[in-house]
């Protein structure tokens, strides 16, 4: 049976047109679905209070609000904030907050997260910015509704970086404020929230380069007098001599005799 693959028939033009339109529709639907899937930054593990107008849900390009806390029972250390400059702001002023960061990898998106630090108020904001983006304008409507000021707010930004043989989550120091920043500080502030009361916190800081890691200090006690549970512990980080990725290992002894640790990697772009 002869088969003609090369010569279009009298109706082939219109058929192609129909196929093209179908393909375009399918492509558009897939594009919309994939785009929506990509930009929805909501954490599916957070229980959303449905009736609460300030409940955690998608609000434009971010997910924000209070959630129902699922108590894990584990004695973990939560990294709640990492900033270079966090200016005071009035959450009820209606002014947007501006978040700025230095890009460590042009090819990877940046994830933004905010934690509420007030006891028994479980608030979070999650957003994801495309690769190359260096700032984010954050509407303060929900913050104003919940009266969350700087004192009760922690903010984080991170990206994935290839370090050694694998990919690591590397935090980027944030500058946060509703007004333009005048002079960035020569130091970072890390806020750690312990689930249970601690006796002491020990820090080990190392710089990660192409060669072996260089330890700047090891097991240095923070020596604060009191580490109550669910109270943010502010840890200053300064005296970083070279740009690049640093690793901060945090160990803590609990009052009940147990101990816990966590690791924190961050990118320092210079002062």
């Amino acid at each position, binding site marked *: 049976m002869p088969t003609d693959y090369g010569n279009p028939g009298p109706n082939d033009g219109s058929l192609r047109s129909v196929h093209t339109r179908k393909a375009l529709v399918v492509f558009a639907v897939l594009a919309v679905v994939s785009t929506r899937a990509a930009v929805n930054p909501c954490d599916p593990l957070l229980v959303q*209070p449905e009736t*609460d107008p*300030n*409940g955690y849900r998608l609000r434009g390009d971010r997910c924000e609000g*209070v*959630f*129902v*806390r*699922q*108590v894990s029972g584990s*004695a973990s250390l939560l990294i709640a904030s990492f900033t270079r400059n966090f200016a005071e702001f009035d959450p009820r002023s209606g002014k947007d907050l501006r978040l700025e960061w230095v890009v460590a990898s042009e090819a990877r998106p940046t994830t933004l997260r905010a934690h509420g630090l*007030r*006891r*028994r*108020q*479980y608030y979070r904001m999650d957003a994801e910015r495309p690769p190359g983006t260096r700032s984010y304008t954050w509407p303060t409507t929900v913050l104003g509704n*919940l*009266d969350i000021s700087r*004192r*009760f707010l922690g903010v984080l930004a991170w990206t994935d970086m290839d370090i050694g043989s694998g990919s690591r989550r590397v935090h980027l120091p944030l500058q946060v404020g509703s007004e333009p920043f005048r002079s960035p500080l020569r130091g970072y502030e890390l806020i750690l929230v312990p689930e*249970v*009361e601690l006796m002491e916190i020990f820090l080990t800081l190392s710089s990660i380069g192409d060669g072996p890691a260089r330890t700047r200090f090891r097991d240095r006690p923070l*020596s*604060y*007098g*009191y*580490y*109550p*549970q*669910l*109270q*943010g*512990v*502010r840890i200053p980080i300064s005296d970083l001599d070279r740009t690049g990725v640093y690793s901060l290992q945090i160990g803590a002894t*609990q*009052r*009940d005799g147990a101990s816990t640790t966590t690791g924190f990697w961050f990118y320092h772009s210079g002062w």
Partner: protein
Amino acid sequence: MSRFFISYRREDAAAEAGRLYDLLSQRFGPGAAFMDVDTIRPGVDYRTTTEGHLRECDALLAVIGRHWEDIRDEAGRRRLDVADDLVRFEIEVALARRVAVIPVLINGAQAPSESTLPDSLKPLSRFQAIRIDTPDFRRDSEKLLDALSGLGRTRFSAILTRWEAAVAVSILLLVGVLAFTRVQRAPAEIRLIVSQLGFRIAETRAVVDGMSVGRLGVAGVSETRMPGEEPSIEPAVLLEAASPTGRISLPSLVLEMGTWVWFDRSNVPAEVTIGLTGPLQFQASIEGRIKVGPSGSKSYEVRFDAPASVHFKASSTDSIELSAAPIRQASTTLSREVRIDSLSLTRIEEAALDGEPVVRPVSPIEGGTVAFWSGAGPVRDVNQGDWMALAGLQGELKTVTFRDGMFDVRFAGTVQGLRVGSSTEVVNVMPTYVEALWANYRLLFLVVVGLCFVLTAAAIRKAI
């Protein structure tokens, strides 16, 4: 309605029927007997009235004289053979309704033979008859009356009207429904041993009792001022007795109405955590050698030869947490006689400032009881591992005592929607309406239900 129906033929034994009527009225009271002459009002349908009386009566007395069987009408027909003969009709209705039929043979009359009776009346020949003769009328009648007395005792249903029966059955049905329907709210006394609890106070007053502690951690306040120092914005400070002579006293905390208070045991044994929201100002008293541990700088030790005060101040948005290790560890009363309008005995996690707390269904309950109406109502046990939730509550926390690392909670007040169970199966343990009636109107409830049972049973027997 009359209890006894007298059936007779005027041409046969009218006088004897009348005497019998009088004797029945004397023995059982006026109206106890029905007799066509006296009882049917003019203009009333005789058949309908007769049917009505026969439906309600205990017995039909068929007064049979010597001519009872043979009396004929004007056409010469034997009356008993005529279908619309009234005597025949009366006995037929009584037999059909299974009313007791007692043949009363007057002055030597013979009991009717089955062969001479029409088919519908043949059963009459098999019934035990009573003889009454004119010379001994009174004595013979007494036998009949005695027999009827016994019959009356077993036929209580005769005095029951349809309406009374309907009301009795309805009440019993209602009681049946109420036995499974739970009240919305009820007074209750609750005693529980829990590892944590939260409550919202309904009046501004001192809620947490003052206590001597060996260690006091204060977190979440806006301002702290140590003796002789300027106020500092220190969110958390620890005061710890550095020697046996060191003394730390936590004062009574006066909290505003509507404040949520949480009592929780710390992860360190014999230490209690008290959580609350501001605004609040209080001062702890310290004496002797005290270790002061700020949360943002190094700790130091100070000696106070005389009692001194450490001031704490919290704003309305502050969420404060006090961590205290009472010196008298065996038993410490934390709170007493506090009016509250909400209580949670499971772990509380607040999701919003303005909303109700969100409760995690994990039980910290060690055990306890809930006694409704101070024990006059049902008493429910709460077992270890159960969790408890309330839809509403008003009342007074009698005492909250911290003992052996647990809180002994005593509450008296009104509860709503009390549910107890495991995380997978929770049951409403509010009392049913029947339990409520029993607790409050025990004797009256018993009498009403008992009466309804008797009336209903009688109605059922009658219907059968």
